[in-house]
């Protein structure tokens, strides 16, 4: 009944929508439609009142509850569902099962959704997904995992989050699946995935130990390096070149304020009171300044955010935001940063390189075609350029009751075919597979984005995860962001605040339990 | 048809005791009036009988059956409430019909229709049947609530001050109607009022209630002529009875009352004497109804007591004359056209034979000489 109700609403709407807008008198148009809306709502409200009772508490299965991938595309489940006795691999072996997927609002997720029909056709597995904006994504994910009720079966996650989820036994380690030939397609080719990236999802669960050790907790979807994405129009308008050093960046950014009229400014960087503020531009500069987040002293993690280099670079970063950043910086997630760049508000973004693709692809934004990419600014003269990297991966819920089906999903969307499709047809940048980087179509495509490939090549060797793995990642980085906000907004000076931060972080990491 | 009895019934609301050891026997087909001032516990008494209130102590019986634990809807009583308690959301018709539609007293709709119309006709509200209570006058509402009671034939009618909210004229008229209604309904009726005239004119018997206790139960005559207590004596009669303390003065064989410092004129009636003797009273309280006090303005100290006019209130047909003697005020009835300036000397003659005697200590009835209201007890 709910479905047919949806239909009615939709038709009702399309009717309204179809209506040609004769007069341009805003208000009258508005009034007329507002009226219709009201009427419609009252009607539907009644409809629902009647239907509401009959629809039990059937959790997610409600069509409204989660937007399920277009139903008609999922054909009737195949008969054979159990995995075959012999070791041979078969995409259809879990046909008929239904898995829940939790996705972060991101082009990678959009690429997955776009290809769900193919996946469902291939495997006969039905996929239910839901998308959450990044601001709430990890809070929601954590709570969902904590339920340990197997929902979702698969979820997007960053490598950093694994440091928290793995010790809590929220995520399934994947080596066992990879080893099993009856579960993993022979042409999956793990070695095709850049080791540097794959290692980002490996960890031995010992706080302070580097990534790349221990077992595999997730499969990478794509990764971002943090660079300068700039608007050529903007730089040309003052005849400037992309800045090489951080100081240049500050100076240039300041010059660029107002380059494109009211509210336009120099450099877009993230600023919300959230862990996500730290890892892109800031962490890149932070690491290049030689500062470290932690050191291990006699087996204990000790925060180093109060080291002279750390304080120095933090000062500089604050200066950058104050002089060239967005006015309401503390509201800035990567969404705002990215869309400001695309809308011609920001001249430069010191954030993920993929901005160049999201905003630069034809018709993607107002400034598409004007965007160029350059390596992140160096802090010390003559140092080799590198960046902090962010890896979006998909992991499996340890409590999942459909691990095998979930594994097929993970394979498919990290497999060669999808990765290539995503890199050529969608915005799955940067692709994780070497084979894709050799694919001519792909190379042709990135050629559209000036400086993208060069930048990538220039920094990739020194690009890695610059954070020290430890399960208090969220605490430390959120506190860090708060500190950064205080410093930028001039509430307190870098010196004292970073010392305070170090104390707070140490207090936090002391409480890490290792049993 | 039912006789109803309360035995030692006590009902408390929190700390306040509404009924205190009340015992009543009501005979079948009797029109029984419960009289008392506001807050005496009259309504509570009805509620206990109706089953709305459950007594803490004592039993309520109907036809000898103990009904304490029987729910109101199963007692087959009909009640008329002081504020009518009509159903605001129902038409007059539905209000009257409601008992006959209840699971307990259900009747076929056809029967209901004719019953309601019959009752409505009797009460002369048949032209209001489609209205809502809010569209009625008090008198009409009262009739509707009456109709709701009359539409069925219950064991007993309970009426809680049904006339109080009506204007004087209507009240008279209704009082009369009740009387004859009761006559041809011949169902036990328990009628609560605080108006002594209603009580006297309607009741076969009257129970006088005061602060949750029974003062007296008796026929109107008992109540009026042989009030059990001074409270009862004062409650009935307008203007109020004159109660005077009198010493007994023995002069040889003759006994006199010392009233207002005059001990010559008031011989104690023979029948009363014996009682006083028996109880060995020194003082008594003597009650004179205003109408039992004669007056004249011509000096006749020999047979009369000298007093002075205190006030004079003409009430149309008659007037209330208050005289002042021996530091006491005495009310008596006089023709309205009387010439009575204040302080004018006046001479009073008390009709001792009609006097009512009370024990000065207990303030309870002793005896009465007069023949009125049936044989005296002595």
């Amino acid at each position, binding site marked *: 009944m709910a479905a047919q109700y949806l239909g009615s609403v939709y038709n009702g709407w399309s009717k309204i929508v179809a209506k040609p807008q004769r007069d341009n008198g805003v208000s009258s148009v508005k009034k007329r439609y507002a009226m219709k809306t009201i009427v419609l709502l009252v009607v539907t409200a009644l409809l629902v009142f009647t239907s509401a009772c009959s629809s039990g508490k059937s959790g997610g299965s409600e069509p409204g509850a989660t937007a399920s991938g277009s139903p008609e595309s999922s054909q009737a489940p195949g008969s054979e569902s159990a995995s075959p006795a012999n070791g041979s691999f078969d995409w259809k072996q879990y046909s008929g099962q239904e898995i829940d997927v939790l996705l972060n609002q991101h082009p990678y997720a959009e690429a997955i959704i776009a290809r769900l029909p193919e996946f469902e056709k291939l495997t006969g597995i039905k996929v239910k997904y839901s998308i959450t904006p990044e601001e709430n994504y990890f809070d929601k994910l954590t709570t969902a995992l904590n339920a340990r009720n197997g929902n979702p079966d698969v979820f997007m996650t960053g490598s950093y989050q694994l440091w*928290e989820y793995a010790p809590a036994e929220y995520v399934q380690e994947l080596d066992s699946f990879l080893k099993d030939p009856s579960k993993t397609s022979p042409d999956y080719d793990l070695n095709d995935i850049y080791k540097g990236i794959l290692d980002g999802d490996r960890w031995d669960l010992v706080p302070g130990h580097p990534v790349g050790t221990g077992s595999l907790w997730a499969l990478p979807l794509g990764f971002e390096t943090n660079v300068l994405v700039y608007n050529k129009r903007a730089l040309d308008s003052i005849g400037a070149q992309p800045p090489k050093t951080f100081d240049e960046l500050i100076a240039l950014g300041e010059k660029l304020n107002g380059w494109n009229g009211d509210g336009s400014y120099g450099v877009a960087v993230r600023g919300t009171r959230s862990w996500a503020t730290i890892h892109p531009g800031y962490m890149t500069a932070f690491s290049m300044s030689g500062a470290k987040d932690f050191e291990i002293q006699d087996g204990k993690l000790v925060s180093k955010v109060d080291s002279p280099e750390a304080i120095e670079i933090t000062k500089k970063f604050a200066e950058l935001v104050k002089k060239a950043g967005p006015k309401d910086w503390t509201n800035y997630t990567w969404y705002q940063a990215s869309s400001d760049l695309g809308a011609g508000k920001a001249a430069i973004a010191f954030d993920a390189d993929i901005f160049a693709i999201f905003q630069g692809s034809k018709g993607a934004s107002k400034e598409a075609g004007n965007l160029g990419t350059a390596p992140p600014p160096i802090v010390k003269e003559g140092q080799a350029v590198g960046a902090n990297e962010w890896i979006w991966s998909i992991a499996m819920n340890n409590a999942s009751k459909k691990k095998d089906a979930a594994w097929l999903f993970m394979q498919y969307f990290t497999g060669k075919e999808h990765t290539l499709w995503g890199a050529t047809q969608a915005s799955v940048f940067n692709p994780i597979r070497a084979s894709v980087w050799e694919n001519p179509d792909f190379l042709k495509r990135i050629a559209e984005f000036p400086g993208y490939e060069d930048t990538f090549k220039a920094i990739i060797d020194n690009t890695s995860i610059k954070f020290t793995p430890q399960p*208090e990642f969220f605490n430390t980085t959120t506190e860090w962001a708060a500190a950064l906000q205080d410093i930028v907004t001039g509430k307190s000076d870098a010196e004292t605040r970073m010392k305070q931060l170090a104390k707070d972080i140490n207090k936090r990491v002391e409480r890490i339990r290792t049993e | 048809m039912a006789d109803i009895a309360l035995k030692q019934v006590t009902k408390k609301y929190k700390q306040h005791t509404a009924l205190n050891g009340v015992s009543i026997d009501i005979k079948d087909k009797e029109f029984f009036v419960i009289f008392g001032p506001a807050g005496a516990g009259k309504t509570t008494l009805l509620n206990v009988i109706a089953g709305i209130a459950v007594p803490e102590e004592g039993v309520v019986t109907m036809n000898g059956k103990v009904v304490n634990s029987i729910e109101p809807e199963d007692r087959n009583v009909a009640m008329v409430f002081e504020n009518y308690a009509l159903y605001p959301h129902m038409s007059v018709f539905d209000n009257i019909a409601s008992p006959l539609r209840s699971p307990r007293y259900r009747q076929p709709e056809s029967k209901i229709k004719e019953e309601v119309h019959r009752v409505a006709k009797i009460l002369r509200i048949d032209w209001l049947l489609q209205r809502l209570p809010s569209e009625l006058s008090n008198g009409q509402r009262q009739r509707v609530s009456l109709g709701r009671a009359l539409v069925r034939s219950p064991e007993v009618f309970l009426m809680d001050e049904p006339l109080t909210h009506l204007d004087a004229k209507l009240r008279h008229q209704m009082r009369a109607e009740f009387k004859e209604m009761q006559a041809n309904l011949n169902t036990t009726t328990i009628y609560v009022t605080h108006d002594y005239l209603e009580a006297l004119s309607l009741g076969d018997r009257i129970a006088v209630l005061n602060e949750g206790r029974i003062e*007296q139960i008796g026929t109107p005559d008992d109540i009026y002529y042989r009030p059990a207590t001074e409270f009862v004596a004062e409650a009935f009669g307008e203007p109020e009875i004159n109660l005077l303390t009198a010493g007994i003065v023995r002069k040889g064989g003759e006994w006199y009352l010392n009233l207002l410092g005059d001990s010559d004129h008031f011989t104690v009636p023979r029948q009363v004497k014996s009682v006083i003797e028996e109880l060995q009273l020194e003082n008594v309280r003597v009650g004179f109804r205003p109408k039992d006090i004669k007056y004249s303005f011509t000096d006749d100290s020999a047979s009369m007591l000298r007093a002075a006019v205190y006030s004079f209130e003409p009430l149309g047909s008659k007037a209330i004359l208050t005289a002042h003697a021996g530091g006491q005020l005495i009310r008596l009835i006089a023709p309205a056209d009387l010439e009575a300036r204040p302080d004018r000397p006046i001479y009073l003659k008390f009709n001792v034979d009609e006097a009512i005697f009370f024990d000065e200590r207990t303030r309870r009835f002793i005896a009465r000489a007069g023949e009125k209201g049936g044989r005296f007890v002595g």
Partner: protein
Amino acid sequence: MSSIGKSGETVQIADLAKDRMDTYRVPPIPFMRKARPYLILAPALLLTIGILIPFFISIYYSFTNYSFKYKDYSFVGLENWTLMLKDPSFWHSVWVTGQYAIFSTGAEMLLGIGVALLLNQETRLAKALRMVLIFPLMIAPVIATLIWQLMTNNSVGVIAHFLRSVGIDNFVWGADPKTAMFSVVLIDVWVYTPFVIVLVLAGLRSLPKAPFESAMVDGGSAWFTFKTLTLPMIKPLLVIALLFRTMISLQEFSIIFALTRGGPGDTLMSLSLTAYNEAFTYKELGTALPYMLILWIFVYIVSHYMIRYWSRAQKNASGS
């Protein structure tokens, strides 16, 4: 005790004796009838218990180191509480919470009373506005916050645009510690002032005419009549308005959460925000709970006394 003369006495004694006998046979009132009020209440009581249990569980967990980051947890006694009380950020959040409650409630009461008085006139304007002015109250606070974000948004916001056109381009609302509190309070005021208006207006419209006419005759100034007549008479309503506003603003979460998530820095880390952060960002349930328990205890006690005070004010207002 119907007594007719002295011979009646004997009869009556006999009666009494008989009655006594009977009173021994007073039938008990059926259980179902005695229990009726409780039966009727039962569902509500069950639900209440169902809702109260979490409170007690949370008290228990506040003595453990329960964390989403670990599988098991252990009893840590008062550690969470002492940690909290020693933590300066706790006192900061108390301060923030208090500020928020006082500013928003204060502004709403004053503004509300003022507007209510204006709406109480019989002008066409007042009549027209009486209804529509409550609309903001019907908007979810979080939605309201989004609306204000839209209006103040630096890129698309009409207010930002307006400010720029008058030359103010560095007013960034929630993004600046100096104006963050102002911004959230402003939204709170926008949403909840109508609440005060509706209550006060109702009070004003139900006022008896007579005393005011007499006051007019005595030629008391408008302010004087307001102070000596109006105010005392609408006091109960004011108390209620105050009660609801204080209690709810003390635990306001969604506005701050939606606008700045407690930032910039710690500017808006109220008790609720801190608790949320501890529990859902840091996944430390044990340390999160004391923040809320403290708030709850406070709210519970205060509201209890305000209710008492209200019912007294109610009596006085109606009594006199």
